[in-house]
């Protein structure tokens, strides 16, 4: 028996959003009497932390603390239109809509402040902590919360904003394939190390180390969450998952988590990532997107590592222990792997 180690790499780009029939999302924002802001959306949080990220973008733009933001989403009686949470589009599309709505609401606050302080809006700055002050004269200031209260009870005005972001429809030229299919691109490069047991064909993934460039991160911990979960899913896709384990026979298609194979905690490799931030030209604060791409580069990196470990090229997924063993048998017989 031998345990053979190998390293493989893979590099990928990933498109943010799609063009669909036009790809819009909207956001509405309004201030409450206490100066917190309700952000009303129709986007779903799949667990990636959409509510959190939208609250951060709204807080940043409005210049108020994160805790002042309430995200209310996905009730079609109140939430403005949204295409949906897919295509790595939410942080970019919904984020842009939230930012636009927040800017409009901020303008209303600044207008009030400028009237009360008797200066032009251009002379006002936000302190990021819920305050507005006159540039160069920090003692001349107003709290956004107070302005919001007076807007309602004293001035009878709204502090609200509407935002939309739309990627226009781009038809595909059926002859040449010319199209504009995305808004921006994020990148990843993964290096995987594996160990192959030549008796069983079993692959242990030792490490998945990646560099990502995803534009500005809104919440780095949540970005790491996507990268780590995606690395595991990529490993799972590469080595385990199929709904047709006996294909072309469709017998034994899994019905439960025992039969649908995925790695567990004991199979975890070291998962490590560095993240570069190069702001995109069109995402809110320069974001790109990271939701989907994280399962992609680990798959070929692992498959390439297997080849470098044991000389077996498997071009079909999942790379089962049986496929590796048959490949090793073929190598031993001098025929080369299929």
């Amino acid at each position, binding site marked *: 028996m031998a345990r053979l180690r190998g390293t493989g790499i893979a590099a990928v780009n990933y498109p943010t959003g799609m063009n669909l029939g036009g790809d819009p999302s909207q956001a509405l924002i309004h201030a409450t009497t206490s100066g917190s802001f309700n952000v009303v959306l129709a986007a779903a949080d799949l667990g990636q932390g959409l509510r959190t990220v939208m609250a951060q973008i709204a807080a940043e733009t409005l210049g108020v603390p994160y805790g002042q933001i309430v995200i209310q989403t996905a009730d079609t009686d109140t939430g403005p239109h949204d295409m949906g949470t897919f295509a790595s589009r939410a942080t970019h599309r919904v984020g842009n809509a939230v930012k636009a709505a927040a800017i409009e609401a901020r303008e209303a606050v600044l207008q009030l402040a400028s009237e009360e302080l008797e200066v032009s809006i251009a002379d006002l700055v936000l302190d990021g902590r819920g305050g507005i002050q006159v540039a160069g004269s920090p003692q001349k200031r107003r709290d956004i919360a107070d302005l919001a209260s007076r807007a309602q009870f004293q001035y009878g005005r709204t502090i609200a904003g509407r935002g939309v972001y739309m990627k226009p429809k781009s038809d595909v030229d059926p002859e040449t394939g010319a199209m504009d299919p995305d808004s921006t691109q994020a990148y990843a490069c993964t290096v995987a190390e594996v160990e192959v047991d030549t008796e069983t064909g079993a692959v242990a993934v030792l490490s998945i180390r990646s560099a990502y460039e995803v534009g500005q991160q809104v919440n780095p911990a949540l970005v790491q969450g996507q990268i780590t979960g995606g690395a595991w899913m990529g490993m799972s896709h590469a080595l385990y998952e199929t709904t047709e384990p006996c294909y072309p026979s469709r017998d034994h298609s899994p019905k439960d988590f025992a039969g649908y194979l995925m*790695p567990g905690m*004991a199979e975890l490799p070291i998962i490590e990532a560095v993240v570069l931030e190069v702001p995109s030209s069109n995402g809110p604060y320069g974001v790109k997107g990271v939701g989907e791409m994280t399962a992609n580069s680990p798959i070929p990196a692992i498959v390439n590592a297997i080849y470098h470990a044991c000389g077996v090229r498997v071009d079909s997924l999942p790379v089962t222990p049986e496929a590796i063993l048959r490949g090793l048998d073929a190598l031993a017989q001098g025929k080369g792997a299929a």
Partner: protein
Amino acid sequence: MTVSTYFQPDSLPEALALLGEHGPDLLVIAGGTVAMPLINEGISLPAKVMGLRRVGLGGIEQRGDRLAIGAMATLTALTTLQEVPLLAEAARHTASWAVRNMGTVGGNLFTPPPGGDVATALLALDAQVELVGPAGARLLPLSGFWTGFMTTAAGPDELVARIVVPVAPGRHAFVKLGRKAANTPAVVTVAVRAAMDGEAVRDVRIALGAAGPHPLRSAGAEAAVEGRALTPEVIASAAGAAAEDAQPFSDQVASTWYRRRMVGVMVGRALAQLASAEQRGA
């Protein structure tokens, strides 16, 4: 079907009486880890169900040089069984913590392939099944208990009451290959129990799980090692014989081809483990 009655007999005689009264209409469940999923998803639609958690068969007691394990003893209870370390090891490699807290040793005899790691260990231990029916109790060697794919020698009016396991000095080895390290269906499970006579192996029993319609012993592998020292050549010969004896099948975790190959590899690893095992009770 909407279940009309769930019987919870308080004693074995009461359970047997219910079984006699309702016959094959009565679905008997032990830990529920196999039957309940089928009921929950509407695949099994029983009208009458009998649960055995209250019949008082959860205990483990010494009977001379044997251990009588109540059929309703949980797999968790086996994991700390010092008298029979092979059984404890097999139990530790079965399913997950919560399932082990629910699943029973009796139920493990009926687990559909590729299950039954504990059953495989019991086969290597030459355990007997105590079946109790209207005519009383009878002891059946486990090797004669299974009669085919999901069929056993238990009569329709009988229940498995206990599993009787010899406690004898010797060596053991347990190897389970799954696609994962923990909570995994078996590609192949190998349980070996032997006495040692100097370097030579005596009274060896090599049981294979997930290598046939039920746990089975490899006569070829046993013959290859019986009375011999566990040299690499002897181990290789036994591994080859086991691969030939296996009656593997394809499922989600492995194909027939791969299982047969792994029977050989895992029997080899188990015997290598046996050769290096420190002397301890098995």
